[in-house]
């Protein structure tokens, strides 16, 4: 998690700046970062809010951008037996892309490692603190943050750093390529539905690839 902090901070900062530059007041931007805490969804709805789009369009766009969290929760669920109800609620608020991917990478490597519940919660809290600090700086100092540096790209690079090592596994690589391609083709689709379509079609492709590769290996 710690190496990902610069990426999380850069992305949080840029999201803070984007909220204010799209016309939100400082107070409203602070409310949004604290209660919504979903960078991708926030960035997706800002142009819609600036254009005074209907509430349901804003809601459906946020929902589609966030639907990947349902998949994340489904993947996390078998590992969370030790969690109490309040801890589950806390995770439900805190667990974004980075803690999820880092946790899944760790259990893929180490299996059900000790204190994994505390590990996930701790990573999620740390990610939240870094994101919120950066986002508040972005909101308060929006006019002083240079947008031409492409700071948001540091967040993209941090996510890239988490996915590339997983591509050495052939079915994962095929699934990721298909997921990326579908997300690319579906970039302009309504309500950001290309993102969810990419993830689901990628997962199905990876599973089918694995089944085919496995069957061939057995028949040899």
């Amino acid at each position, binding site marked *: 998690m710690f*190496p*990902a902090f*610069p*990426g999380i901070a850069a992305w949080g900062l840029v999201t803070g700046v984007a909220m204010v530059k*799209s*016309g*939100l007041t400082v107070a*409203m931007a602070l*409310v*949004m970062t604290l*209660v919504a805490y*979903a960078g991708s*969804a926030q960035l997706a*709805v800002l142009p819609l*809010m*600036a254009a*005074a789009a209907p509430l349901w369009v*804003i*809601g459906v766009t*946020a929902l589609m951008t*966030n639907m990947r*969290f349902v998949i*994340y*929760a*489904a*993947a996390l*669920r078998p590992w*969370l*037996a030790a969690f109490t109800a309040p801890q*589950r609620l806390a995770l*439900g608020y805190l*667990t*974004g892309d980075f803690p*999820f*991917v880092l946790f899944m990478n760790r259990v*893929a490597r180490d299996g059900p490692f000790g204190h994994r519940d505390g590990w996930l919660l701790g990573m999620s809290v740390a990610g939240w603190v870094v994101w919120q600090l950066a986002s508040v700086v972005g909101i308060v100092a929006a006019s002083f943050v240079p947008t031409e540096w*492409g700071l948001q*790209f*540091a967040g*993209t*690079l941090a*996510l*890239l*750093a*988490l*996915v*590339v090592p997983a591509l*050495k596994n052939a*079915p994962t690589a095929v*699934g990721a390529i298909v*997921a990326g391609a*579908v*997300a*690319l083709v579906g*970039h302009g689709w309504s309500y950001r539905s*290309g*993102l969810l379509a990419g*993830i689901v079609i990628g*997962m199905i492709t990876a*599973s089918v690839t694995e089944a085919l590769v496995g069957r061939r290996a057995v028949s040899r």
Partner: protein
Amino acid sequence: MSSGLSTSETLLAVVVIALTTFLTRAGLIVAGDRVRLSHTAESALRFAPACALAALVVPEILFPMGTLDLSLDNPRWPAALAATLLLLRHTSVTGAIALGMTVYAIVRGLS
């Protein structure tokens, strides 16, 4: 530039966005073992991290302004390519960010 929504409409929109985030993240985590998934679905979920990251990252790299840009006016793709080549040899988030942002700055400076 001012927001097109009134203060109360903006607040309502923020609450709706927050609800979609919380319900999608927390739903299955809170439900826990009360929800059962097929073996096929559980197995496919192993690919969720890589597929989600790819679907998030690829458009960010190739569609910087909402349209496909494979020219050097888009410094993101050479930067991502350099970072990927590094990451295939050596897993380092810090290294990927440092190399990627350096290439990004150089390509920007050249074009």
